[in-house]
Protein backbone atom coordinates (compact mmCIF):
# COMPACT_ATOMS: atom_id res chain seq x y z
CA UNK A 1 0.00 0.00 0.00
CA UNK A 2 1.42 3.38 -0.97
CA UNK A 3 2.53 5.47 1.94
CA UNK A 4 2.73 9.23 1.47
CA UNK A 5 6.23 10.55 2.21
CA UNK A 6 6.39 12.16 5.62
CA UNK A 7 7.88 15.48 6.73
CA UNK A 8 11.62 15.24 7.31
CA UNK A 9 12.13 13.08 4.22
CA UNK A 10 14.26 14.40 1.39
CA UNK A 11 11.94 15.17 -1.52
CA UNK A 12 12.86 12.78 -4.36
CA UNK A 13 14.20 14.65 -7.33
CA UNK A 14 12.42 14.25 -10.65
CA UNK A 15 12.34 15.60 -14.17
CA UNK A 16 8.98 15.89 -15.93
CA UNK A 17 7.65 17.54 -19.07
CA UNK A 18 5.97 20.86 -18.44
CA UNK A 19 5.21 21.55 -22.09
CA UNK A 20 5.65 19.47 -25.22
CA UNK A 21 9.29 20.47 -25.53
CA UNK A 22 10.34 21.61 -22.05
CA UNK A 23 11.18 19.65 -18.96
CA UNK A 24 11.40 20.82 -15.37
CA UNK A 25 13.45 19.27 -12.55
CA UNK A 26 12.69 19.70 -8.89
CA UNK A 27 16.38 20.27 -8.18
CA UNK A 28 16.30 23.40 -10.38
CA UNK A 29 14.09 24.97 -7.74
CA UNK A 30 16.48 24.39 -4.85
CA UNK A 31 16.77 27.62 -2.85
CA UNK A 32 13.05 28.38 -2.63
CA UNK A 33 10.07 26.58 -1.12
CA UNK A 34 8.09 24.37 -3.50
CA UNK A 35 4.47 23.33 -3.28
CA UNK A 36 3.66 20.10 -5.13
CA UNK A 37 -0.02 19.43 -5.73
CA UNK A 38 -0.67 15.93 -7.04
CA UNK A 39 -4.20 15.57 -8.35
CA UNK A 40 -6.16 12.87 -10.15
CA UNK A 41 -7.03 14.51 -13.48
CA UNK A 42 -7.57 17.69 -15.46
CA UNK A 43 -11.10 18.74 -16.40
CA UNK A 44 -13.22 18.00 -13.37
CA UNK A 45 -16.50 19.83 -14.07
CA UNK A 46 -16.68 22.42 -11.27
CA UNK A 47 -15.61 26.06 -11.37
CA UNK A 48 -13.86 25.83 -8.05
CA UNK A 49 -11.75 22.81 -8.89
CA UNK A 50 -8.53 22.49 -7.00
CA UNK A 51 -6.10 23.79 -9.65
CA UNK A 52 -8.33 26.74 -10.54
CA UNK A 53 -8.58 27.46 -6.84
CA UNK A 54 -4.80 27.53 -6.37
CA UNK A 55 -4.67 29.90 -9.32
CA UNK A 56 -6.70 32.35 -7.23
CA UNK A 57 -4.39 31.89 -4.24
CA UNK A 58 -1.15 32.24 -6.21
CA UNK A 59 -0.32 35.71 -4.81
CA UNK A 60 -0.37 34.21 -1.32
CA UNK A 61 2.12 31.51 -2.31
CA UNK A 62 4.27 34.12 -4.02
CA UNK A 63 4.44 36.09 -0.78
CA UNK A 64 6.49 33.17 0.54
CA UNK A 65 8.52 32.98 -2.68
CA UNK A 66 7.09 29.49 -3.10
CA UNK A 67 6.81 27.85 -6.49
CA UNK A 68 3.59 25.89 -7.08
CA UNK A 69 3.43 22.95 -9.47
CA UNK A 70 0.49 20.69 -10.27
CA UNK A 71 1.17 17.05 -11.20
CA UNK A 72 -1.18 14.48 -12.71
CA UNK A 73 -0.79 11.57 -15.11
CA UNK A 74 -2.36 13.58 -17.94
CA UNK A 75 -0.18 14.23 -20.98
CA UNK A 76 1.31 17.60 -21.95
CA UNK A 77 -1.37 18.48 -24.52
CA UNK A 78 -4.17 17.79 -22.09
CA UNK A 79 -2.37 19.99 -19.56
CA UNK A 80 -1.90 22.72 -22.13
CA UNK A 81 -5.60 22.80 -22.97
CA UNK A 82 -6.63 22.65 -19.32
CA UNK A 83 -4.20 25.39 -18.29
CA UNK A 84 -5.50 27.61 -21.06
CA UNK A 85 -9.14 26.97 -20.21
CA UNK A 86 -8.59 27.79 -16.54
CA UNK A 87 -6.09 30.60 -17.16
CA UNK A 88 -3.61 28.86 -14.90
CA UNK A 89 -0.48 30.82 -14.07
CA UNK A 90 1.60 27.97 -12.70
CA UNK A 91 3.09 24.87 -14.36
CA UNK A 92 1.34 21.54 -14.70
CA UNK A 93 3.71 18.59 -14.91
CA UNK A 94 2.92 15.43 -16.86
CA UNK A 95 3.68 12.30 -14.81
CA UNK A 96 2.79 10.47 -17.99
CA UNK A 97 5.69 8.23 -18.97
CA UNK A 98 6.48 6.05 -17.13
CA UNK A 99 2.95 6.44 -15.84
CA UNK A 100 2.81 7.71 -12.30
CA UNK A 101 6.52 7.14 -11.69
CA UNK A 102 6.97 10.35 -9.72
CA UNK A 103 3.73 9.88 -7.82
CA UNK A 104 4.98 6.42 -6.84
CA UNK A 105 8.24 7.89 -5.52
CA UNK A 106 6.15 10.19 -3.31
CA UNK A 107 3.85 7.39 -2.20
CA UNK A 108 0.79 8.94 -3.80
CA UNK A 109 -0.07 6.72 -6.78
CA UNK A 110 -3.40 4.89 -6.88
CA UNK A 111 -2.43 1.59 -8.49
CA UNK A 112 -6.00 0.39 -9.03
CA UNK A 113 -7.18 3.57 -10.78
CA UNK A 114 -3.94 4.58 -12.50
CA UNK A 115 -4.17 8.16 -11.22
CA UNK A 116 -2.45 10.22 -8.53
CA UNK A 117 -3.91 10.77 -5.11
CA UNK A 118 -5.00 14.26 -4.21
CA UNK A 119 -1.84 14.93 -2.24
CA UNK A 120 0.04 18.04 -1.21
CA UNK A 121 3.69 18.52 -0.33
CA UNK A 122 5.45 21.62 0.93
CA UNK A 123 9.18 21.27 0.33
CA UNK A 124 11.59 23.67 2.00
CA UNK A 125 14.34 25.51 0.16
CA UNK A 126 16.82 22.78 1.03
CA UNK A 127 14.75 20.10 -0.65
CA UNK A 128 13.26 18.49 2.46
CA UNK A 129 9.57 17.78 2.80
CA UNK A 130 8.24 20.09 5.49
CA UNK A 131 4.59 19.05 5.28
CA UNK A 132 2.52 16.55 3.39
CA UNK A 133 -1.15 15.72 3.27
CA UNK A 134 -3.27 13.25 1.35
CA UNK A 135 -6.88 14.33 0.91
CA UNK A 136 -9.77 11.94 0.27
CA UNK A 137 -9.89 11.74 -3.51
CA UNK A 138 -13.20 13.59 -3.83
CA UNK A 139 -12.39 16.39 -1.38
CA UNK A 140 -10.56 19.52 -2.49
CA UNK A 141 -8.04 20.08 0.33
CA UNK A 142 -7.92 23.84 -0.15
CA UNK A 143 -4.97 26.02 0.73
CA UNK A 144 -5.08 26.54 4.48
CA UNK A 145 -2.74 23.62 5.21
CA UNK A 146 -0.27 24.79 2.56
CA UNK A 147 -0.22 28.36 3.84
CA UNK A 148 0.25 27.23 7.40
CA UNK A 149 3.16 25.02 6.35
CA UNK A 150 4.77 27.83 4.35
CA UNK A 151 4.46 30.13 7.33
CA UNK A 152 6.17 27.55 9.50
CA UNK A 153 9.24 27.33 7.32
CA UNK A 154 12.43 28.88 8.69
CA UNK A 155 13.13 32.19 6.96
Amino acid at each position, binding site marked *: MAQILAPGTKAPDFTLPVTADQKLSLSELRGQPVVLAFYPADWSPVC*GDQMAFYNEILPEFQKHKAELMGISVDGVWCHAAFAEARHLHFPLLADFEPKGAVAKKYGVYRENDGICERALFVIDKNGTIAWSYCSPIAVNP*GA*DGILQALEGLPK
Partner: protein
Amino acid sequence: MSELKIPVGASDHIQGDAQAAITLVEYGDYECPHCGAAYPIVKRVQKHFGKRLRFVFRNFPLVQAHPNAQSAAEAGEFAATHGKFWEMHDAIYENQRELSTDFLLQLAENLGLDGRALAKSLKSEEYAEKVRADFLGGVRSGVNGTPTFFINNHRHDGPFDYGDLVESIERAAR
Protein backbone atom coordinates in the same frame (compact mmCIF):
# COMPACT_ATOMS: atom_id res chain seq x y z
CA MET B 1 -13.20 19.35 9.84
CA SER B 2 -12.51 22.95 8.94
CA GLU B 3 -13.38 25.75 11.31
CA LEU B 4 -14.31 29.33 10.54
CA LYS B 5 -11.27 31.39 11.47
CA ILE B 6 -12.89 34.82 11.34
CA PRO B 7 -15.80 35.02 13.82
CA VAL B 8 -19.00 36.63 12.60
CA GLY B 9 -18.93 40.25 13.69
CA ALA B 10 -20.02 43.82 13.19
CA SER B 11 -18.60 44.21 9.71
CA ASP B 12 -20.48 41.18 8.41
CA HIS B 13 -23.71 41.18 6.39
CA ILE B 14 -26.16 39.31 8.58
CA GLN B 15 -29.75 38.49 7.80
CA GLY B 16 -32.08 37.19 10.49
CA ASP B 17 -32.38 37.22 14.21
CA ALA B 18 -29.27 38.45 16.03
CA GLN B 19 -30.04 35.98 18.85
CA ALA B 20 -30.50 33.02 16.51
CA ALA B 21 -28.90 29.86 17.82
CA ILE B 22 -27.78 28.80 14.35
CA THR B 23 -25.48 30.81 12.11
CA LEU B 24 -25.14 29.84 8.47
CA VAL B 25 -22.21 31.50 6.71
CA GLU B 26 -21.79 31.32 2.95
CA TYR B 27 -18.60 32.22 1.13
CA GLY B 28 -19.83 33.03 -2.35
CA ASP B 29 -18.89 34.31 -5.77
CA TYR B 30 -21.58 36.34 -7.56
CA GLU B 31 -20.66 34.96 -10.96
CA CYS B 32 -20.37 31.31 -9.94
CA PRO B 33 -23.22 29.18 -11.28
CA HIS B 34 -23.07 26.91 -8.24
CA CYS B 35 -23.66 29.91 -6.00
CA GLY B 36 -26.47 30.89 -8.32
CA ALA B 37 -27.96 27.46 -7.75
CA ALA B 38 -27.48 27.79 -4.00
CA TYR B 39 -29.24 31.17 -3.84
CA PRO B 40 -32.85 29.87 -3.88
CA ILE B 41 -31.84 26.96 -1.66
CA VAL B 42 -30.53 29.29 1.02
CA LYS B 43 -33.79 31.24 0.86
CA ARG B 44 -35.74 28.03 1.45
CA VAL B 45 -33.45 27.11 4.34
CA GLN B 46 -33.95 30.55 5.87
CA LYS B 47 -37.71 30.18 5.53
CA HIS B 48 -37.62 26.72 7.07
CA PHE B 49 -35.67 27.69 10.18
CA GLY B 50 -37.20 31.14 10.65
CA LYS B 51 -36.02 32.84 13.82
CA ARG B 52 -33.70 29.96 14.69
CA LEU B 53 -31.22 30.84 11.97
CA ARG B 54 -29.25 33.87 10.83
CA PHE B 55 -27.48 33.98 7.50
CA VAL B 56 -24.15 35.65 6.74
CA PHE B 57 -22.72 36.22 3.28
CA ARG B 58 -19.01 36.75 2.73
CA ASN B 59 -17.21 37.43 -0.52
CA PHE B 60 -15.12 34.77 -2.21
CA PRO B 61 -14.71 35.88 -5.80
CA LEU B 62 -12.76 33.53 -8.07
CA VAL B 63 -11.33 36.37 -10.12
CA GLN B 64 -9.30 34.23 -12.50
CA ALA B 65 -12.32 32.13 -13.37
CA HIS B 66 -15.00 34.83 -13.27
CA PRO B 67 -14.20 38.24 -14.77
CA ASN B 68 -17.16 40.05 -13.20
CA ALA B 69 -16.98 38.48 -9.77
CA GLN B 70 -14.72 41.12 -8.24
CA SER B 71 -16.79 44.12 -9.34
CA ALA B 72 -19.95 42.38 -8.25
CA ALA B 73 -18.45 41.78 -4.81
CA GLU B 74 -17.34 45.41 -4.56
CA ALA B 75 -20.75 46.59 -5.72
CA GLY B 76 -22.29 44.60 -2.89
CA GLU B 77 -20.02 46.31 -0.39
CA PHE B 78 -20.83 49.70 -1.90
CA ALA B 79 -24.53 48.97 -1.55
CA ALA B 80 -23.92 47.87 2.04
CA THR B 81 -22.61 51.28 3.06
CA HIS B 82 -25.90 52.67 1.79
CA GLY B 83 -27.94 50.09 3.65
CA LYS B 84 -28.84 48.06 0.59
CA PHE B 85 -26.53 45.06 0.78
CA TRP B 86 -29.16 42.32 0.66
CA GLU B 87 -31.11 44.02 -2.10
CA MET B 88 -27.97 44.18 -4.22
CA HIS B 89 -26.93 40.62 -3.33
CA ASP B 90 -30.33 39.25 -4.25
CA ALA B 91 -30.63 41.29 -7.43
CA ILE B 92 -27.28 40.05 -8.71
CA TYR B 93 -28.10 36.41 -8.05
CA GLU B 94 -31.50 36.76 -9.63
CA ASN B 95 -29.89 38.17 -12.77
CA GLN B 96 -26.59 36.32 -12.90
CA ARG B 97 -26.66 35.94 -16.66
CA GLU B 98 -26.75 39.71 -17.12
CA LEU B 99 -23.77 40.32 -14.90
CA SER B 100 -21.49 43.07 -16.19
CA THR B 101 -20.26 46.40 -14.89
CA ASP B 102 -23.01 48.24 -16.78
CA PHE B 103 -25.56 45.94 -15.25
CA LEU B 104 -24.22 46.63 -11.75
CA LEU B 105 -24.49 50.37 -12.34
CA GLN B 106 -28.05 49.94 -13.58
CA LEU B 107 -28.87 47.81 -10.55
CA ALA B 108 -27.52 50.49 -8.26
CA GLU B 109 -29.78 53.06 -9.88
CA ASN B 110 -32.77 50.71 -9.60
CA LEU B 111 -32.07 50.41 -5.89
CA GLY B 112 -32.04 54.17 -5.45
CA LEU B 113 -28.27 54.39 -5.25
CA ASP B 114 -25.98 56.68 -7.22
CA GLY B 115 -24.68 54.76 -10.25
CA ARG B 116 -21.95 57.28 -10.88
CA ALA B 117 -20.76 56.96 -7.29
CA LEU B 118 -20.62 53.20 -7.76
CA ALA B 119 -18.69 53.61 -11.00
CA LYS B 120 -16.20 55.83 -9.19
CA SER B 121 -15.96 53.37 -6.32
CA LEU B 122 -15.24 50.48 -8.67
CA LYS B 123 -12.65 52.48 -10.56
CA SER B 124 -10.82 53.44 -7.38
CA GLU B 125 -11.14 49.91 -6.01
CA GLU B 126 -12.58 51.41 -2.86
CA TYR B 127 -13.88 48.10 -1.53
CA ALA B 128 -11.21 45.81 -2.98
CA GLU B 129 -9.48 45.50 0.37
CA LYS B 130 -12.63 44.47 2.22
CA VAL B 131 -13.40 41.89 -0.44
CA ARG B 132 -9.83 40.59 -0.28
CA ALA B 133 -10.06 40.35 3.52
CA ASP B 134 -13.20 38.23 3.18
CA PHE B 135 -11.42 36.08 0.62
CA LEU B 136 -8.29 35.50 2.69
CA GLY B 137 -10.33 34.81 5.81
CA GLY B 138 -12.13 32.19 3.79
CA VAL B 139 -8.90 30.63 2.54
CA ARG B 140 -7.66 30.38 6.13
CA SER B 141 -10.93 28.76 7.15
CA GLY B 142 -10.55 26.04 4.54
CA VAL B 143 -12.80 27.46 1.86
CA ASN B 144 -11.74 25.67 -1.32
CA GLY B 145 -14.36 26.69 -3.86
CA THR B 146 -17.77 28.27 -4.03
CA PRO B 147 -20.18 28.12 -2.44
CA THR B 148 -18.74 26.97 0.87
CA PHE B 149 -21.02 26.94 3.88
CA PHE B 150 -20.18 27.03 7.58
CA ILE B 151 -22.81 26.02 10.12
CA ASN B 152 -22.04 27.35 13.58
CA ASN B 153 -18.41 27.76 12.53
CA HIS B 154 -17.95 24.24 11.16
CA ARG B 155 -17.51 23.84 7.44
CA HIS B 156 -20.36 21.93 5.81
CA ASP B 157 -18.82 19.24 3.63
CA GLY B 158 -20.92 17.50 1.02
CA PRO B 159 -23.73 18.61 -1.27
CA PHE B 160 -25.66 21.80 -0.62
CA ASP B 161 -29.05 20.51 -1.75
CA TYR B 162 -31.90 21.69 0.44
CA GLY B 163 -32.15 18.34 2.22
CA ASP B 164 -28.42 18.10 2.90
CA LEU B 165 -28.20 21.63 4.31
CA VAL B 166 -31.27 21.19 6.50
CA GLU B 167 -29.93 17.90 7.86
CA SER B 168 -26.53 19.40 8.57
CA ILE B 169 -28.11 22.38 10.32
CA GLU B 170 -30.45 20.19 12.39
CA ARG B 171 -27.46 18.15 13.53
CA ALA B 172 -25.58 21.28 14.54
CA ALA B 173 -28.59 22.63 16.38
CA ARG B 174 -28.88 19.58 18.61
